[in-house]
């Protein structure tokens, strides 16, 4: 057995952090909440895929198909903004069956002289699609029969006034999901930190801990340990989300999506640093889990406010409210990434918001650290912040 050695601050902080991580990984609540978030995300993805495919694909059954007919159907589909899938069917009976089974949205009986379209109930969309294709084909055939082969029809040039409208909409959606994710994880991990602090106070184990380390080492270990878990979780979620979205081809511009995901993760780090410290300090003022809600309620309200402003900023990224709040430390992690994703934000604006946030974190850690140290060994009831600040140890 080796002789005990002196421990550096780093070693102590790492020990505390490792304990936090292993305790959380065995905590059912943590596992459940992580799984729930992932399931919701996968559900969202699946929903997008389902909705997307429903909109973009039209299955049309054809009896007696020809290459020309198929081509005409597809051309018509393009004009109507849908991918046409042609299903070859043997006879009318098969066509009826396919329509009734909703395997196809309509079935065209093309072999006869008078083509008929079978549908479940009259549906303008499929009728327009098939009708248009059949008419076009008939016109082309008759023109060919009349000897006109190279018909010079003028092509209409398209000039898009807002070519990015679609992509913008996606960016806003991604920004909103990002803000929701930030909000959820900040609250979740803020609560974990707060519960951890109160657990140590309530069980009085803190007195044993402080006999071997300084309060700031305990606080740093706790915040870092849970922070590593939080970061792992948000990276995992962002990875699954971005990967899934790209794999299922939900987004048009993958680069934008990745950029937004990266900025959400970066803002999580900053937001977590601030909120975890504040939650820890607030929690150190009470001695029982039952009293915890009263001190962290104001904080969750601030976070909820930030989230609401963030949602608002998605639709109006350049409005005054969004602009101002994207600089306010504490609100900026929930608003700035939305503005970044949904609008045009200058680099200097991001820089200022980050610097303000860092200053706030430094202040909270300095002042909060004193409150935390002063309040840790005091038990019974709620301690006033001023008392904790001036507490003599």
């Amino acid at each position, binding site marked *: *057995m*080796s002789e*005990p*050695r*002196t*421990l550096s601050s780093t070693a*102590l902080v790492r*020990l505390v952090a490792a*304990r936090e991580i292993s*305790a959380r990984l065995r905590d059912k609540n943590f596992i459940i909440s992580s799984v729930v978030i992932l399931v919701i995300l996968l559900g969202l993805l699946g929903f997008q895929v389902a909705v997307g495919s429903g909109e973009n694909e039209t299955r049309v059954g054809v009896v007696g198909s020809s290459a020309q007919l198929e081509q005409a159907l597809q051309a018509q589909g393009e004009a109507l903004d849908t991918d046409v899938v042609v299903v070859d069917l043997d006879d009318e009976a098969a066509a009826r069956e396919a329509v009734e089974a909703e395997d196809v949205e309509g079935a065209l009986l093309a072999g006869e002289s008078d083509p008929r379209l079978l549908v479940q109930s009259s549906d303008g969309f499929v009728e327009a699609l098939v009708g248009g294709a059949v008419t076009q084909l008939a016109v082309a055939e008759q023109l060919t029969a009349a000897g006109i082969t190279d018909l010079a029809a003028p092509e209409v040039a398209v000039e898009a006034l807002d070519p990015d409208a679609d992509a913008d909409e996606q960016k806003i959606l991604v920004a909103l999901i990002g803000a929701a994710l930030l909000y959820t994880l900040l609250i979740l991990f803020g609560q974990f930190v707060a519960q951890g602090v109160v*657990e*140590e106070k309530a*069980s*009085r*184990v*803190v*007195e*044993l*801990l*402080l*006999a*071997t*380390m*300084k309060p700031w080492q305990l606080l740093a270990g706790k915040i870092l340990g849970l922070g590593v878990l939080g970061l792992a979780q948000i990276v995992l979620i962002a990875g699954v989300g971005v990967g899934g979205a790209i794999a299922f081809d939900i987004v048009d511009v993958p680069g934008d999506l990745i950029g937004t995901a990266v900025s959400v993760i970066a803002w999580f780090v900053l937001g977590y640093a601030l909120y975890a410290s504040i939650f820890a300090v607030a929690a150190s003022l009470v001695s029982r889990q039952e009293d915890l809600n009263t001190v962290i309620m104001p904080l969750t309200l601030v976070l909820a406010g930030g989230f609401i402003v963030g949602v608002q900023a998605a639709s109006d990224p350049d409005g005054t409210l969004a602009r101002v709040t994207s600089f306010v430390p504490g609100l900026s992690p929930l608003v700035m990434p939305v503005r970044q994703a949904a609008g045009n934000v200058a680099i200097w604006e991001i820089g200022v918001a980050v610097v303000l946030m860092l200053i706030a974190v430094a202040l909270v850690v300095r002042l909060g650290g004193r409150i935390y140290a002063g309040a840790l*060994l005091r*038990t019974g009831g709620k301690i006033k912040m001023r008392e904790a600040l001036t507490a*003599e*140890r």
Partner: protein
Amino acid sequence: MLEFDGLTKSFGANQVLDGVSFAVQPGSMFGFCGSNGAGKTTTMRVAMGLVAPDGGEVRWQGRALDQSARRRIGYMPEERGLYPKMKVAEQVAYFARLHGMDGRAATTSAGEWVERLGLGERRNDAVEKLSLGNQQRVQLAAALVSRPEVLILDEPFSGLDPIGVDSLAEALLDQARAGVPVVFSSHQLDLVERLCDSVGILARGRMVATGTVDELRRREAGRLLRVVVPDAGPQWADAVPGARVVSEQAGDTILELSDGADDQSVLAAALRTGRVTHFAWQQPTLVELFRGAVAAPTAEEVAA
């Protein structure tokens, strides 16, 4: 040597420690007595760096305690504290690591202590599932696991059943025999008297008496008189010059005589009440020493 030197501390207007000094030799056990609120816990917290003293310091081997020296102290706080949801062996190993043992040594040592304190079968149970007595053993294991050079234990015996008391006493004696200075506080004075090489009595933030139990006895010897007068009224001795009643129970009276007071005048007063079944100078027990030391403020305390 572990030295507590002139500790003073006040919380606001409340002076909790007023020059507390004593020393504990390596390999000896020091019992720390005092009524509730006398300052025992504060003294120990000062030693552990949990309370900063206004004046004075605690030294180990001639050097003031700092954080790394404190890591060599095994400590049991008055308010027991463990992580309720952490497993027994893991928890003990965690405290070993906080005291500077590396991972493997910590696990081995934790396993040994858990086994030794009879918790082998519960090693993988969460602490909150254990009985209070067993939790106390885990607490002790956490204090002993890093093979500390010094032990400071606040009320280690409180809440234990007689068998628990015996096994804890045995564990502490083992430590003392191995050369570790042990300081513990307790209200169970018979236990202190039985276990401790020296004793300190704290009252109102001051050490009112320190020394071996024998020294304290000698200091008090010849001053305490036990008189049993079954027929007497409770105030029978009040009129005797130079005698103070320390305790009185159904005529069984302990009297403290000031210098120059005449024991024969006490006997005369006793005989006036009727039968006298016992009259002898008393070897005071620690309880009596304690009562005498704590009861009345000394002259200088009154002056202060």
